[in-house]
């Protein structure tokens, strides 16, 4: 039988069956198609502007490695004029991060890019291994996700970068759409499919300006949001990219695991299904009550101005094993609500309106993460329109200044819980023989964050 020629160039032998549409392509045509599709996404959404410094959230995994490689190629080919920097987060997971960070270090050399590694220990005083030791394997992804979200922004702020790109692919997007439907989370559904998420202040500062990036105006975008995971793997394979392929050793949450299995099954039945779910997600976002308000008529095309806070990122590399803990917790919660509803035990009590307002964006220093600063409130302006509290309004955390709809951001809440349970009387010997109590050591932790803000100024 004669070899099948490539459907695009008709010259070379087709070696690749494109997972997305089952087109038969040769290696060269596959690579150039993949790249031009990403280019198409970048140009049609005006993702970057010339001279912009971009931090690539790099984990050493396939998605971020392909993102770095493709961005470098396209930046040179199409003269984007971007300055690309690799930004890595060290969660402190032994046997997982150590090796993947080595990969990122090699990538930095291969792609000739600056690399910044930020550790959870220096940011929060806890490595993920220590967190797992304390909270167990169930639910630790919550910590990791919340910490990572802030870590990327904090790292970007340290680098003086206003825009972080991440390697989220179409499979991740589709998974998130199904997951938010299963969880009944409309606010997240409305913003999870946007190619770019940015805080209101960042949206205002979208025009290149010389203002120093602060923690509350860093843009996030996902140039690979329409790229199939399988094609990313193929691209990495054929470009012989150096990536790290071990999955996180801690398991993902049940909802994500459940949605992931479903997405894989759907893809097997109809290859376009992943893209179709993403499309549904984008269309549904506009049906979420209050969408017009969030968008305020300013966002064009697929760029949503949803806030980035606590957006579900999940672990890009984790497999679909499901613990079920998160699902049963939600089930119990819903059952209790249903029962209360049925027995009419619940009476609606309206709370006085109290909404935290956004901090003055001009004040761009990262406030210190310090205990005992609770009295110092972020500057809030009185509310002009008496809207109910139902919608998230972004303010900043009283403790650390990070973007938050609550008084204290999620990371600080989690940290408080962790720190509370850390043995208080533990005694350890410091290098010079002096005895230092844990209490004292903890006092020093905020110092690490303080150091950060000094570094970047």
């Amino acid at each position, binding site marked *: 039988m004669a070899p099948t020629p490539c459907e695009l160039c008709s010259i070379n032998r087709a070696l690749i069956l494109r997972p997305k549409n089952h087109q038969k392509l040769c290696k060269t045509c596959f690579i150039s198609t993949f790249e031009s599709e990403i280019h198409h996404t970048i140009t049609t959404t005006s993702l970057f502007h010339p001279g912009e410094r971009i931090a690539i959230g790099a984990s050493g995994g396939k998605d971020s490695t392909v993102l770095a490689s493709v961005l470098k190629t396209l930046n040179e080919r199409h003269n984007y004029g971007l300055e690309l920097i690799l930004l890595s987060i060290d969660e402190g997971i032994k046997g997982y991060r150590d090796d993947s960070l080595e990969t990122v270090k090699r990538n930095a050399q291969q792609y000739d890019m600056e690399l910044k590694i930020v550790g959870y220990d220096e940011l929060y005083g806890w490595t993920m291994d220590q967190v797992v030791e304390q909270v167990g394997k169930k639910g630790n992804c919550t910590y990791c996700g919340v910490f990572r979200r802030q870590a990327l922004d904090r790292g970007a702020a340290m680098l003086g970068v206003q825009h972080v790109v991440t390697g989220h692919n179409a499979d991740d997007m589709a998974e998130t759409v199904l997951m938010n439907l299963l969880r009944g989370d409309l606010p997240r559904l409305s913003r999870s499919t946007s190619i770019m998420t940015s805080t209101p202040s960042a949206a205002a500062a979208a025009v290149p300006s010389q203002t120093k990036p602060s923690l509350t105006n860093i843009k996030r975008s996902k140039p690979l949001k329409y790229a199939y995971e399988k094609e990313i793997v193929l691209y990495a394979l054929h470009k012989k990219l150096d990536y790290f392929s071990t999955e996180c050793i801690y398991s993902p949450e049940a909802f994500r695991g459940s949605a992931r299995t479903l997405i894989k*099954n759907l893809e097997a039945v*109809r290859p376009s299904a992943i893209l179709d779910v993403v499309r*549904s997600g984008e269309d549904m976002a506009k049906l*979420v009550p209050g969408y017009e308000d969030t968008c305020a008529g300013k966002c064009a095309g697929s760029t949503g101005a949803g806030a980035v806070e606590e957006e579900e990122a999940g672990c890009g590399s984790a497999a679909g094993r499901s613990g079920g803990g998160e699902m049963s917790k*939600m089930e119990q919660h819903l059952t209790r609500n249903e029962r209360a509803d049925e027995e009419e035990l619940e009476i609606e009590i309206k709370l006085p309106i109290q909404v935290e307002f956004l901090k003055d964006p001009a004040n761009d220093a990262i406030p210190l993460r310090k205990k005992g600063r609770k009295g110092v409130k972020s500057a809030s302006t009185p509310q002009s329109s008496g809207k109910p509290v139902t919608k998230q309004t972004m303010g900043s955390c009283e403790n650390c200044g990070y973007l938050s709809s609550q008084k204290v951001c999620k990371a600080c809440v989690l940290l408080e819980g962790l720190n509370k349970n850390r043995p208080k009387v533990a005694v350890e010997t410091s290098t010079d023989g002096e005895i230092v109590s844990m209490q004292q050591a903890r006092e020093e932790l905020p110092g690490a964050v303080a150091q950060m803000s000094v570094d970047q100024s």
Partner: protein
Amino acid sequence: MPAKHIGAICRRCNILEATLTVRSDPLCRDCFVKYVHTKVIKRMEAFRTRHSTADQTRVLLLPVSFGVSSITLLHILDGHLKAQNERTGRKGFALHVLFVEEELSTREELEKKVGFLKERYGRHEFSSIHLSQIFKSGGNSDEISQTRMEALFSTIKSATSLTDVAIILRTRLIVQFAQDSNCEGILWGDSTTKLAEKVLSETAKGRGFTLPWQVADGMSPYGIPFYYPMRDVLKKEIIAHLDLVSPPLSPLLANGILAPTIAPPSAKNTTIDILMRQYFESVEESYPSIVSNVVRTTSKLQAPLDANISLCKLCKLPVNDDKLGIHGWGGDQAILTDADEDRLGLCYGCSRAVGREGAALLP
């Protein structure tokens, strides 16, 4: 749904021994049957006798597929109407039962099943109609309609698309029938579980924009109200209910309908609908509230109020003109696109289901 609380006393009546566990409560047989009935009848409040006039009966169309939900709905509403009549001498509404035949080969079985139903619920008007009747515009004969339907189906390559198109045509036919026979609304048998399935499978088929209409009670975009009286009952509850009433309902069902859904081994023969049914059958086992939460959440979505609305040529749902077809959005990254498909007047999801060839054959 076997009883977890063996030997426990029913939580509702506190007298009888529980026979099964419903949303973590032990219930006896009578209380469970009452529970299911109440959930359905509560949804029919707009059709109480006090809202009906003596001279004009409100007719509601009840399409029956011989699945667990539609048969149970017929059974419950039949009992409800009987009770209404005994109590007040009046009925809040009248039922018109409709069967849609899809394959001629099942006609014998269907006639037998219809016979059983008429025997038991003969008070109501019964009709049956073949799916190909949707092609009967302009006085086509039955043969021509049938041929046209077969021609359309032969252009559709995948099992998923075939089921998808058949379901859409069935809905359209039922709507058309309801309007032609002066029905005031359509009563769909969908359970909570079925509605959740529909939400996720329509999402997977690229029809996320239709979700506000997929689960909502009230006026549908087809111009006739849709009601889902079984929306608060889980599929597993409906199944448990089947044989707790006497005589049992299961002999009335289509053959093999009670077997658990197992996707065919080959992905080629599997459909998105089968995958979702299988998925929710398993979620429903341990996490029933999550299933109902999906439906509750979806009903909060608001139908768009866009200008430049057309109706998709297949699903007949309102869609913004610039959202027709599969091209021209972010996920369509082709540099040179064949925009012809966008001129077919199909929504995104329907463009995935039928190609250009099929679009020309649509009724």
